[in-house]
């Protein structure tokens, strides 16, 4: 669960990035965060990951009160969150398998668990055939699926996808969002930041629109995909 209470962020340069934002994303929700660049979307994500601290207000993520969280406990917070980036951020010297296993190694998981968990997650994103390939041998869409597998592998409560479709073909974008929705159906909260309105209109769901540091719009709308299904 993510909860913002009267959160404001002012950068040291004097820029007000967020202004008294109130927001609640319940466990199991799927929400799109939209808004033009500079609206405060990245600030929102940085707050959730505790890369930055709120100037005022309270941020609560998965039961951690971030304003009271000591530095040494930040890893514990981040282990409950999976992150997918626009630029994938895969390690080029590692195979698909190693890129995914890396996360579990880092959090000190038993090697037996790693050996069973990693192939399972790779199969969830449909990349069984590419397990031993290097990221450079994959298409953009495939690379993002690897990144998604990496975000999923330690079974996080919350997945943050920061413009996950920004660097891949529009056709493949739908595939990525569809995958995110399937992950969400299994109970994981998903927060996807995007500025592709077509995508949002197509899938529908909860839309949070941030404009000039405030929430301009936060409602659930029906998507085209649901209409198609009916």
């Amino acid at each position, binding site marked *: 669960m993510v909860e913002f209470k009267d959160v404001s962020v002012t950068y040291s340069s004097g820029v007000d990035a967020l202004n008294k934002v109130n927001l609640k994303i319940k466990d199991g929700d799927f929400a799109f965060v939209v808004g033009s660049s500079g609206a405060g979307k990245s600030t929102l994500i940085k707050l959730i990951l505790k890369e930055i601290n709120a100037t005022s207000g309270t941020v609560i993520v998965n039961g951690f009160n971030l304003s009271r969280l000591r530095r040494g406990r930040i*890893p514990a917070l*981040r282990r409950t969150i999976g992150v997918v980036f626009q630029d994938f*951020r895969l*390690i080029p010297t590692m195979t698909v398998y190693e890129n995914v296993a*890396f*996360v579990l190694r*880092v959090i000190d998981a038993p090697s037996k668990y790693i050996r069973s968990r990693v192939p399972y997650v790779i199969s969830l994103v449909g990349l069984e055939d590419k397990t031993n390939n290097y990221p450079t041998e994959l298409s953009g869409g495939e690379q993002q699926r690897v990144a998604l597998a*990496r975000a999923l592998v330690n079974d996080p409560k919350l997945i943050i996808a920061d413009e996950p479709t920004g660097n891949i073909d529009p056709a493949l974008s739908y595939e990525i969002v569809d995958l995110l929705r399937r992950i969400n159906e299994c109970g994981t909260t998903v927060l996807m930041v995007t500025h592709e309105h077509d995508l949002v209109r197509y899938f529908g769901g909860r839309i949070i629109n941030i404009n000039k540091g405030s929430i301009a719009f936060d409602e659930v709308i029906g998507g085209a995909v649901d209409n198609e299904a009916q």
Partner: protein
Amino acid sequence: MKLSSASYLVGQGMKSIWRNRMMSFASFCIILVSLLMVGISVLVTINLNRVIDGIEDQSEAAVTIKDDTTEEQRNELKKKIEQLPNVATVTFYSKDEAWQSMKEDLSDEQQDLFRYADDNPLPDTFRVTVKDIRIMSDTSMQISTFDYVDTVKSPTQFADVLVSIKNILMIIMTAVIAALIVVCLIIISNTTRASVFARRKEINIMKYVGATNTFIRVPFFIEGMVVGVFAAAAALLLTKFAYEGVYGIIKGDMSLLSILGIDNLYPFSKMALKVTAAYLVSGAFIGAVGTSISASKHLKV
């Protein structure tokens, strides 16, 4: 931390050495050179100290005894001198012995001069060696106040010189070691920066998925330690060859030998264990501490 994670981290450290081999080699060289310089200066100092100690042991105060002293009084005096805390040994050197040895030292012509002198002009003496040469002058003063003592001659000036040589050696050594440690740490911190840069993507992802700071730092720590240990091993070999070479030269040269006294020099085998331990520990320490300090600085973990 689990065993599998530990071996993973060690593996990462090793990989990182190879990935940044040029910089690892630079660290290797700087640790090697530093260890060699410190090690050789320590070894030279140890040996010089031993030589100086040897000279000290030989330097003795000559206590001349008044002419009309009886044997009983003389023994009483000997006891009193022996009871002084700083006195190591007291040897009696009779006037006859002194006369004999003096005559042996003279040339034939000079001996002619003394041939008809029946009366031995030399006094009885005690030769006194001390435990601590630095307070030899105090000891001499004390002895000179005793009854039956005529004069006390001690090489106090010489003793002072020896003591100041020792002190200067100490200061130079400390300065050399301190300077080398600083240089080492600066160079190693630059090496680590390259290593951090090469792994910045991994580090970034590690931070996002919740790796603890320790977990991120350990590979750097291991990287530095391994480089340090290798440098120590190389330094050990070089030191051994250099030391044994110089030792052999001194042993082969009779004139040097007589000045220094070969008994006063340590053969390498006698110190090998201590030198090995010191090199390995300090090599690993410099490497590991150097990298972890700068790793934390550059990682901002």
